[in-house]
């Protein structure tokens, strides 16, 4: 008798393990690293974030001198959030970043 048979029959009457994603959502843990959001009020335009970003995803806006992140390059490592002296960046829980125009995928 195959040992998997009880599993198969049990599964028939069990709730499927599938999470029906867009309708159902799992709770995300506290330290989840999603899209970094920027609190521009706190920023002192020191430019450290530009230096520490491994992907060169962060640039300073030419006029306002505030950082912005191109999500096309960002890999959500959380380095900017960690090293910013004023804690301007926070890693949000947002992870659905698909877009029609990759150049507009910015976090500002």
């Amino acid at each position: 008798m195959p040992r998997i048979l009880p599993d198969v029959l049990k599964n028939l009457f069990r709730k499927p393990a599938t999470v029906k994603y867009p309708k159902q959502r799992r709770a995300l843990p506290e330290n989840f690293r999603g899209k970094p959001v920027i609190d521009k009020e706190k920023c002192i335009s020191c430019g450290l974030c530009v230096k520490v970003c491994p992907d060169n995803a962060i640039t300073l806006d030419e006029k306002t001198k505030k950082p912005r992140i191109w999500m096309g390059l960002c890999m959500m490592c959380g380095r900017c959030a960690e090293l910013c002296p004023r804690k301007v960046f926070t890693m949000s829980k947002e992870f659905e970043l698909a877009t029609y125009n990759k150049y507009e995928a910015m976090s500002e």
Partner: protein
Amino acid sequence: MTFIIPIGPQHPALEEPAHFRIEVKGEEIVGVDLRLGYNHKGIEQGLSDRSYAHGLYLSARVCGICNSTHSLAFTRAVESVAGIECPDRARYIRVIDAELERIHSHLLWAGVAAHEIGFTTLFMLFWRDRELSLDMRELLFGQRIYASGTYLGGARVDIKEKDIPQLIRTLNKLEKSVKHYIDVCTSDRTIIARCSGVGVLKKKDARELCAVGPTARASGVDFDIRRDDPYAAYGEIPFDVIVEQDGDVFAKVVVRLREILESIDIIRQAIDAMPKGAIRTKFPENVPENEAVGRTEAPRGELMYYVRSNGTNKPERVRIRTPSYANWPSVRPMLVGGTIADIPIVVASIDPCFSCTDRVTIIDTKTGKSRIMTKEELRRLRK
């Protein structure tokens, strides 16, 4: 008379591109030739163009599945180049990170192997339970795959006390189901028929061809970097090295599944033994001229980073020897003498990771162009 069957670069049995030229005589395989290089990313050169801090993230991107152990090996090499000791608590966090990765990687492999022999139910069940280990990585380190628990001179995040009960619960659940799967795999007659005696790698071949990891251990080579060259906190945690003697695909299945149990045990011990304290020491900007080798036991076997520094903040040369790369020569003796139907499972049995293998060259003239385009993209962005 022999004729040649080309398999790949695109083939349903291969998750990623590689090209095999398989010489067959009727159904029997008499020769194998391999062509790699469809996935070049140029990471060795890329690492020497980046500072150590940024290189850590690139080294994790050598391979998606075994990213933690890659960054761990890189960190180990860089830390010994710079002469830095990381704090005790961080060493235990690194062990937990690496072992969670081993669990998810081995379950992933088991699922793929079940799929290659047409056992879809087992494939689905393995992958269902793999989610548990991914959830744990997310809980402790913030992301499911790129957990990056390692940091130069320590660990990136601390493990919170309140997460530990959930981790233990999940590990218990995982242990129960993995034990059940071992039962299933060692008793199911169709699995035994497909795996037992197939793709045998003899102990002599395994040693001569320098096979590593579960591939070597399934052939009776007692070789595990975690024990032979302990890193992180492995020197303080007792564990068994799983060795099987048969060398066939079935032995590889058994080795990997039993290693999962061993990993679960290691994580439990690491949680118990984890001291309190700081998780990081400061890593210097510039690293004195030196050379060092950092080795870790990746899920697929021995992983080696050689780092040569030159006094600046960038390494002069980084050499990566990934486990899949070391195991490719072993595929030949495993395939020769088998039949065509065995190709998928035998190739899968070394757990080939193509992104691990193909990581060496730098950008050629064509991609050089696309690099300029990236700059244009950046320029466009900055407007």
